[in-house]
């Protein structure tokens, strides 16, 4: 699965304003609502579900990356968004570092395979330090989208 298969382009955030976990999740989910991919009346419900997942253990996976996610019946396909934070968000990551790259994933409950393939893609791309560094340095939406497109064309992974 490629980034373009699940990242909603209009919802990508280049300068995340939030510095705390819940605020960051709200900002990102709101972007998905604004992009027409998540229904407004499901917004609070989705935030609640994502936070509940975080209670099981932070999705901050190290290297300044977090992959908050939930299954939710209101989406009929996997939708995701990407946010870059220059100052970093406190995400209670395992390594104690703030996160600068956030990938929010919302998937239909009956499609665990899609969720896995999105996680696989994100983690494979982020293993490449150049991609990871460039993405953290991206300061506008076009730069982020271009990097994701280049990653989709295998320009980073050997």
């Amino acid at each position, binding site marked *: 699965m490629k980034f373009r298969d699940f990242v909603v382009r209009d919802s990508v955030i280049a300068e995340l304003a939030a510095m705390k976990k819940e605020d960051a999740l709200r900002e990102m989910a709101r972007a998905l609502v604004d992009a027409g991919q998540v229904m407004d009346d499901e917004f609070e419900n989705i935030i609640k579900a994502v936070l509940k997942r975080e209670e*099981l253990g932070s999705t901050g*996976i*190290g290297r300044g990356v977090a*992959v908050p996610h939930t299954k939710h019946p209101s989406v009929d396909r996997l939708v995701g968004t990407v946010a870059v934070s220059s100052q970093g968000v406190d995400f209670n990551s395992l390594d104690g570092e703030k996160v600068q790259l956030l990938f929010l994933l919302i998937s239909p409950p009956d499609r665990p395979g899609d969720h896995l393939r999105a*996680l696989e893609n994100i*983690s494979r791309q982020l293993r490449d330090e150049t991609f990871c560094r460039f993405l953290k340095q991206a300061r506008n939406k076009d730069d982020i989208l271009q990097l994701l497109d280049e990653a989709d064309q295998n320009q980073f992974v050997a």
Partner: protein
Amino acid sequence: MSEIRAVREVVLSNSQGLHLRLAQLIAARAGGFQSKIVLIRNNDQVDGKSIINLLGLGAAKGSRIVVQAEGPDADEAIEALVNLLEREVPDLERQEQEAAQRDTQRNDHPTPDEER
């Protein structure tokens, strides 16, 4: 110090596959051993102590995974990881499914207060 190499194959049986929380569990368990631990699926070989690398396996339910440990505590490491994947994780999933079912039942039968 004696170097031992131990190898075992497991089949992922939980419905969600090698998702993030499982990757965290494996990395934490593997991190408790001195041995070098790698997980292999098809031609992919990744560091068993790295969450990001483990997620890169994209292993779904039914995937065959070879667990390999090399080092002074390789045998113990393999035992611990195979036990985690073959027993603890399916048990945990069963418990979570039961808990989710209880939640659903509660929602299906609202208390009189909620029914109004």
